C-alpha cells in the first residue's frame, strides 16, 4: 500500500466516522450549536402582555427536560430526544424552565427583580414545578386558583403551565412546555379545577 493511499484511506475513514457520529447526534446538540450564555438584561418593569409575547415566541418549539433555549422558527429542532436524559441539549424549555424565562426571573432566588433572557440564552433557572407550586423564591407567591388571570400559573408537584385564556366551557387554554412528544404550545386543560394543582403568581406585574 502506498503512503498516499494509506493517508487517503485513513482520512476518509475518520472523516466518515466523526461526521456520521456527530451529525447523527445533531438532534441532541441544539444547545451546543445555537444557544448562548449571555447575561440577562435587567428591566425596570414587566407586563403580562410582554410575558405572553415571550411565551408565544416559544410556541411550536421543542421541549427539553432541564432545558431553556429555543428559537422561533415554529418547529421542534430536536424531535424525539430520549425523555429520560436531561443532557441531550435539545431545543426548548421544560415546564419550569419555560415558566422561569417567561416570568423573566433572576437566578438569585432572593431577588424579585426582572431579567429579560434572550430566546437563545440557555438557562433553566433554579425552580422545579414543585418549588413553583410552593411559591418558592422572592418573585413567586401562591394564589387562589379562582383568582388566576392571564400569565398566572397552575402548578402540580411535577408540572407547571401558564394561564393564557379562559374558555366558555370553563376550561383554560394553558401555554406550557408539556413534554418531548408535545413540545411547547397551547392546549385546553382542566388544571384549575384539579386538586393536584395549585395557583402561583409572579409578583410585580405592571
Amino acid at each position, binding site marked *: 500500500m502506498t503512503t498516499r493511499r494509506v493517508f487517503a484511506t485513513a482520512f476518509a475513514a475518520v472523516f466518515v466516522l466523526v461526521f456520521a457520529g456527530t451529525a447523527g447526534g445533531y438532534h441532541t446538540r441544539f444547545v451546543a450549536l445555537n444557544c448562548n450564555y449571555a447575561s440577562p438584561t435587567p428591566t425596570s418593569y414587566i407586563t403580562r402582555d410582554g410575558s405572553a409575547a415571550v411565551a408565544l415566541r416559544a410556541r411550536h418549539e421543542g421541549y427539553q427536560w432541564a432545558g431553556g433555549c429555543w428559537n422561533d422558527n415554529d418547529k421542534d429542532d430536536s424531535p424525539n430526544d430520549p425523555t429520560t436524559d436531561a443532557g441531550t441539549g435539545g431545543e426548548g424549555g421544560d415546564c419550569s424552565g419555560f415558566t422561569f424565562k417567561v416570568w423573566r426571573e433572576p437566578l438569585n432566588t432572593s431577588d424579585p427583580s426582572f431579567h429579560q433572557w434572550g430566546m437563545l440564552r440557555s438557562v433553566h433557572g433554579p425552580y422545579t414545578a414543585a418549588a413553583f407550586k410552593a411559591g418558592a423564591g422572592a418573585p413567586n407567591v401562591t394564589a387562589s386558583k*379562582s383568582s388566576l388571570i392571564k400569565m398566572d400559573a397552575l402548578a402540580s408537584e411535577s408540572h407547571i403551565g401558564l394561564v393564557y385564556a379562559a374558555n366558555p366551557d370553563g376550561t383554560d387554554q394553558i401555554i406550557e412546555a408539556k413534554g418531548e412528544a408535545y413540545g411547547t404550545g397551547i392546549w385546553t386543560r382542566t388544571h384549575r379545577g384539579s386538586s393536584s394543582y395549585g395557583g402561583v403568581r409572579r409578583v410585580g406585574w405592571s
Partner: protein
Amino acid sequence: MRYRGLTRSAATYGIVGSLAGGLAAVATISIVASAIAQSTPATRGVLDVTHSPALLRAPSDPAQLVYDAHCAATGVEDPEAPCHVAGSVFVREPGSPTFREIPLEQVEVGRARLEASLPGDLVTRPALEYFAVITSQDARATVTVPAAGAAAPTVSHRLDRPVSVALGRHRFGEAQRVGEQVASAHWGDGPYEIGLEEGRTSNPIGASSFDVAAGGSVVVLDHANRKLLRWSRGSRQPERTPVSVNGTIADIAVAQDGSYYVLETTSRDDRNPLVRRFDDAGRELEAVETAEGGPAQILMGPDGPLVLQRPSHHWMPVLVAGVPASQAAQRSRGRGGRRLQAGGEVVVHRVWNELRLALLVGGSITRSWRITSETPLGEVQLAERLGDRFVVVLRIYDDHADEFAVLQLDRHGLRSRTYVASAEWAEGAPLGRFRVAGTQLYRLGTSPSGVFVDRFSLEVR
C-alpha cells in the same frame, strides 16, 4: 521497523491522515452548524388573539366585546417593545344581509386589550352575530375571530327568562359512592393494562378518554400504548385493538357503525392535529386534519362527529355529507352550540361562578338556565338532553379539593343533584371524563393503581 505490515512511513501517513480526516469532519460540521444557526430567521412577528365569546348574554352584562391581541413586532425580541394593533368588530342581527363595522379601541395604550361597544339597538335583540378582524403592521399579520369570519360568525343569544338554580356553598367530602364498576385495568404495558406516557416518575398521563358504544360496551383509549380496550356489557375481560395514534393525549368518540374517531391534540410539521377513524379491527380508514390548531373535544352529533376547535370556540363537523371535510368546510360550518343526537342544540357558557345553559331549536332558545354557586365552578364536562331533562356535569373546586356535580334540570329548575369524586390521578383528555348512554352516566376515573369506569343511574324517583 514495521507495524502490522506497514512501514513506519506509511503508519505516519495513516496517523496524519486520521487526524486530518477528523479535523476536516469537525470543520465541516462547524460550518454546517453555523450555516444552520445563521439561517434561523430573526425574531418573527407574533399576533395571537384571544376572545371568550359572549355565547349567552344576560341583560345585566356589559354591552362590550373584549379581545386580547398579543403582538410582538417582527425583528424585535424585546417583549415590551411597542407593537401596534388595530381592528374592527362586524355585527349584525341574524338574517340581516350586512354587518355593521365597529372599530375596536385600545383600553390602554401599549396593552393588548381591545374593546368594542355593541350598538344599543342590537343589544336588546334575542340574538346577534359578530366576528372581528385584527391587524398588526408591526407583526405583519392579520387574525380573524372566529376564523371563518362572516361565513360562520359567533352567535350571541340573549338570556331573557332563564330558570335560576342556586347551588349555594358546596361541602366537599360527601360525594356519592361508586354506582357500579363496569371496567377496570391496571397501569402497565401488558396487553390488558393501560399505559402511562413516561412511567411513574413523571407527571402521570394516561387513559386519555373513553366512550360507550351501542349495546353498552365501554371503550377506553390507551394512547400511550396505542390501543383500545373494549369491555362488552357484563364482561370483565376486555378485547384489545391496536390503533395507529400518535401516542399523545387524545379524545375518542364511537360511531353508530362501530367505527372509532380519535381526536389527537398534537401534531408535527406545522400541521394541525388529526381526527383518525378506525374500524373495529383497528384499521385506519381515514384521517382528517382539524381546521384549527387547538381542538379540545370530539363527540358524535346527529350527522357524524363534531370537534370543539379553538381559538374559534366553534363545534365543527369532521364529515360533510358523509365525506371528510376540508378545513375551509369545517370552519364555515362552525357553531358555538353543539348539535345533539337527541335533537336541538346546546350552548354552555360559564362566567366565573355562574353557568349559563340553553337549549336551542331552530336557532332560538327554547329553554335556559342560570346556575350559580358560592364555590368556584370549573369546567362543564357534559351537557346532554335526557328526555325532558338536561344532564349537566360540572366541576366544583376550591384550593384544596374538587368534585363533580351531576345536575338534572327541567323546565322548573333543579330536579336532582348528586356529587361524585373527581378520581383524577392521571391526566387525560380535558373533557373526556363523562358520557351518557340511555339513562346511565359513565365516569372514567384513575388512581395510583389503575383505570376504571363507573356507571351511575340517572333515574329520578
